[in-house]
């Protein structure tokens, strides 16, 4: 138990989570990181905002690709 608490394997800071949310756009995250991300998102009020910004950007790039084709 003590060893587990010491490692706190699923705890991530907002800064670490921010980096993971960005990294997810370009690579598949290991399963432990995906779980840590979800747990952090469930507890944090700030990181979901950042995540929505990244999803908005993803959507924006998709629209832009469509725009480059058709115009």
């Amino acid at each position: 138990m003590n060893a587990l608490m010491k490692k706190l394997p699923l705890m991530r800071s907002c800064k670490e989570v921010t980096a993971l949310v960005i990294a997810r756009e370009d690579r598949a995250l290991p399963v432990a990181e995906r779980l840590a991300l979800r747990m952090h998102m469930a507890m944090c009020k700030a990181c979901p905002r950042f995540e929505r910004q990244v999803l908005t950007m993803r959507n924006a790039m998709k629209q832009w690709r469509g725009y480059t084709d058709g115009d």
Partner: protein
Amino acid sequence: MNDPTHDTRFETAVAESRAYLLKFARLQLRDEAWAEDVVSETLLAALAKPQAFAARSQLRTWLVGILKHKIVDVLRQRAREVTLDGGTDDDHADPLEHMAFKTNGHFAERPADWGNPEQDLGSRQFMTILEACTEKLPVVQGRLFLMREWLELSSEEICKELGLTPTNLYVQLHRARLRLRECLELNWFAAR
């Protein structure tokens, strides 16, 4: 000269797309001479096989498709120059360090609520800002970012084509995405 099989309307329409194609070639390649060459090759290829277009509806979609293939060839052939990072210290800084984090790594203030701007995103004004922000990315970051987002190559494909290590690619894309986020926030979401 006056070959009756030539459709002059087709040729005119192809020629008139040059400026349009050049804009994207410049954004992706970030090199004026490469961009000019690859667009010329695209137009020549299109003019050489008008029958390939006949079945299709959108001329620009077809031309952009040819352009993308030619651009991938250029990026592969010039891989070393494409990834040669002559950037400044500022280019190499991690934009994460500019963000408002406390010393324990938690957000000092919440990131802005960008709302739900579905319709705005399709507007011409937004596209102009998005392109300007992409153009402002450091050269190598901009190329790699658009290889993901415009050419739609996977990270694995980009590493293979350019001989990059995944770590190097991810660092550059991380910076590019955070810089783009910052630029959009300043020039679009906070400015509305």
